[in-house]
């Protein structure tokens, strides 16, 4: 187990807390990008430098790292930032709760994840980071908090991204690595999903579009 | 053959004078001399000799009413044992048939009443229907009290099975049955306290108002039918109360005395009581049903004889 991996995982948690505590959408998106970067680095850190001498697996790892980096750290944040600008959403996210409260909640979620990781799950095998599951779980929960608690659509999309990151971290913890096809497929799906979401959000925030999330509750045709 | 002769003789001779007897009793109670015992018979004979007036509204139902009523009353009276414990015309389960024959007569009387289109007659039919429906369960329950111990729903078997000794208290259930049947008799034959046959206000009548439009032979038929119905129900009551032997000279004597007693009792009741308010009559009849039901319970809990 390398120190780097633990550090990276701590960084992931730190980013979670930051996303939870900031009110600015732009900052959140950039934090997301940073988290993507960390995630891309994570396999390298876990497998250490041995990765570069493993023959066939090298290509696999390098490809996965590159793809993660490109998509999660570059492409997705880019689309989100563009959508933010297009939709003309205020830079300040929204006063959903007071930001202190939000931070506090995220901290509680992180604590909860550590507790679950320590109490409910079997101890990690030798050679993997003990922080893997708690970090992943914390990210997942913070992501869920953002999707459920977020009042603008973009916050929800960010929440979805964070959640996906959390799942990925947990996956890496329990699986070590994914088959390349699967990993690429998942990444592509996430990309397309976020792009679509961004487009829809952008449309929904055109002057007459109204709030997309709330509108879904009122059916068409004046049914209710 | 002899019993048939006795049966028919009684059937022909007794019913109309019984009505005369009631009137006589009432007159005496009122301090008058009253009409002759055979006055109802004279009336009927006179009616039979007359022509008739029909309402333009009526149809053949109006004509059929008295005929069917009389026919069913004759059959009912044939079924009931008279001066013997059995009737020569009895058959298994004749108890039910007896009750339903009375029903046939009532149905057609009511239909004929409605045929005139008169509000008064409709009113009478309506009341008759209501009271008859309520009297029906009492009649059946009373009859069951007699029939169940005998294991037979035939008047003959049932009356034969009533033990001779003990008078009115031969069986407590029997007493209750007689009580209920008495009420049924008053209701079915439209006597006080259910109906006042002598009233002059159509609004308060039941039976009389139903036959307002009948005249001549039709009305005679109705009167005869009415008398027969009274006679038949009275005969059942007599058998419940008096131990009439199966054969012998005592039987007709006791029977005639019993029927006279029924007539006199009705006369006395009519003299001392007033007609009930119409809205109270159902209560009176339901009371009879309850009495009869208690009789059934007594029968079963007291062990069947």
């Amino acid at each position, binding site marked *: 187990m390398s120190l780097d991996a633990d550090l990276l995982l701590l960084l992931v948690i730190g980013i979670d807390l930051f996303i939870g505590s900031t009110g600015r959408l732009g900052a959140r998106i950039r934090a997301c990008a940073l988290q993507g970067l960390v995630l891309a680095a994570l396999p390298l850190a876990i497998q250490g430098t041995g990765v570069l001498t493993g023959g066939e697996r090298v290509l696999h790892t390098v490809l996965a790292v590159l793809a993660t980096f490109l998509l999660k750290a570059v492409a997705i944040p880019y689309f989100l930032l563009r959508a933010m600008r297009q939709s003309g959403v205020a830079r300040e996210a929204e006063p959903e709760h007071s930001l202190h409260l939000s931070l506090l909640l995220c901290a509680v979620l992180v604590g909860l994840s550590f507790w679950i990781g320590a109490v409910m799950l079997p101890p990690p095998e030798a050679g993997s980071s003990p922080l893997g599951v708690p970090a992943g779980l914390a990210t997942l929960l913070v992501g869920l908090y953002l999707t459920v608690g977020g009042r603008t659509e973009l916050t929800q999309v960010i929440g979805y991204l964070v959640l996906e990151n959390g799942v990925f971290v947990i996956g890496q913890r329990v699986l070590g690595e994914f088959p390349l*096809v699967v990993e690429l497929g998942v990444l592509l799906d996430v990309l397309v999903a976020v792009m679509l979401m961004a487009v829809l959000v952008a449309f929904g925030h055109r002057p007459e579009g109204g709030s*997309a999330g709330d*509108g879904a509750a009122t059916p*068409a*045709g004046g049914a209710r | 053959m002899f019993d048939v002769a006795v049966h028919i003789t009684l059937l022909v001779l007794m019913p109309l004078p019984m009505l005369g007897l009631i009137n006589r009793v009432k007159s005496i109670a009122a301090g008058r001399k009253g009409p002759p015992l055979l006055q109802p018979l004279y009336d009927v004979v006179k009616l039979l000799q007359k022509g008739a007036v029909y309402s333009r509204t009526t149809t053949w139902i109006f004509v059929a009413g008295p005929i069917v009523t009389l026919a069913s009353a004759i059959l009912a009276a044939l079924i009931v044992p008279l001066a013997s414990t059995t009737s020569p015309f009895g058959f298994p389960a004749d108890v039910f048939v007896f009750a339903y024959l009375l029903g046939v007569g009532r149905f057609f009387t009511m239909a004929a009443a409605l045929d005139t289109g008169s509000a008064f007659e409709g009113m009478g039919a309506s009341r008759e229907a209501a009271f008859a429906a309520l009297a029906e369960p009492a009649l059946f329950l009373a009859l069951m009290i007699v029939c169940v111990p005998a294991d037979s729903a035939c008047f003959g078997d049932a009356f034969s099975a009533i033990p001779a000794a003990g008078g009115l208290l031969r069986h407590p259930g029997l007493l209750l049955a007689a009580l209920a049947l008495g009420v049924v008799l008053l209701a079915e034959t439209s006597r006080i306290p259910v109906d006042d046959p002598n009233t002059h206000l159509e609004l308060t009548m039941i039976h009389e108002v139903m036959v307002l439009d009948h005249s001549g032979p039709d009305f005679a038929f109705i009167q005869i039918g009415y008398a027969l119905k009274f006679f038949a129900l009275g005969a059942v009551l007599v058998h419940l109360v008096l131990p009439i032997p199966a054969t012998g000279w005592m039987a007709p004597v006791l029977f005639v005395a019993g029927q006279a007693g029924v007539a006199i009792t009705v006369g006395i009741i009519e003299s001392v009581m007033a007609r009930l308010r119409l809205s109270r009559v159902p209560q009176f009849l339901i009371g009879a049903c309850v009495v009869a039901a208690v009789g059934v319970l007594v029968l079963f809990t007291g062990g069947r004889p």
Partner: protein
Amino acid sequence: MTLLWALLLVPVACIPIAALLPSAQAVLALCVAGAVAVAGIAAALIPSALESPVFAGGQQLMLDALSAYNLGIVVFVFGFSSVYALRYFGHGARDGTFGRSKARRFGAAWFGFLASMILVLVSNNVGMLWVAMETTTLASALLVCLDFDPPSVRASWTYLMICSVGIALALLGTFLLCGEARTVTNGAESPFLWTDLMRVASRMRPGAVKLAFLFLLVGYGTKAGLAPMHTWLPDAHGQAPTPVSAVLSGVLLNCALYSISRFLPVVEGSTGGDGWAFRLLVPFGLVSIGVAAAFIAHEHDLKRLLAYCSVEHIGIIALGLGLGGTTAALFHTLNHSVSKMVAFFCVGNLAHDHGTRDSRAIGGLLKTSRLAGVGLLVAVLALAGTPPSSTFMSELWIARDGIAGGHLAAVVAFLLGAAVIFVVLLRPILGMAWAPAKEGQPTVRARAVDWPLIVLPLALMVALGLWMPVFLSDALTRAAAVLGGVR
């Protein structure tokens, strides 16, 4: 086997073609042609797949009896829906409301949708299964917001968001399951391949497998529209263009449920076959039926009505699986898909003829639009489980297997719920049939193409209610055998 690859690649190849075709008409024609081609390939594959699984790409692609059966339903519904799309968008293509760019978008997403659904069915790799499942969401979200008007965008957004988040849970479940499998596989076995998972199932720890299954159930259950995760469904199915609604309701839900059922034998293998995983489906089934009944009772939008009805039927299928009526549940899958498809076709035609989907605003149904009206009535009767439709038979079958399995209370609840739904579903339809036609509503003659589209599937439903062909009963038995339950 190359046919399996062809099955997957033909629709994939059609995506760019559709995106490049010069006219809307051409795109619609391609849709039909592509769907027919895929159906042809599937028809060639299915018989052998029913006999024994067909593999391709190493072990990555597999078509076994269960997926072959579902594939049959997919290509059937897709084929009919493609033809219907031709009819539905046809006048739009002529008068310009269904323009070239829209048509291209439609065509590409349509084939992407088909390809991803086929991938769901043929992938032996549970990771790919997830990827394919998410791809169906993306492709169909595009289809839902084809018109790009506010309601459809809102519906599409809700759909995308809920299903993406929900299905992320399924990804978590997949990871947990494969992580557990990794600890017990040897070098030759892959923790991601379903066939290998089945092989090592008995060696996995039941607790971990159960935890993973919970996430899989909720995740894919969201996509399948099981209550209470169904909330996105009425919006999406209601707002999508009608051919898309037909496919969404008709087969997409099946595919999601298929994904859940894939994992059932794995969990059973791990837990020693005590039926834990199957039992977990029962409450979802019952809640879905109940919730559907509640919402149908107050719904007037015909397409949303049918959408809630899908919630009910997915609930019934889940219940059937849960109660041990595997065969019956699979049979019900077919029945629901076909009848729901026709119901959507008819509603689409009615909405076009009457200019509204509000059941209160439509009158004289059986007179003004005779074929669509009668078709809708019959389809809804079938959906409501009226004899002699095959839906009645499969519901009866589920009830029988449920009671034979000792689940009397659940079966009674199911039947009562179904009876209530019968009433609330039929009420608006009958209301439309009886209400006088609205002023100025012309009598619309059905087009020639409507007859086979509506009459054929309905005839099939009645025929299957009265006659079970040998090949179908074989297919059902074999497919049910994959799930480990044969009755």
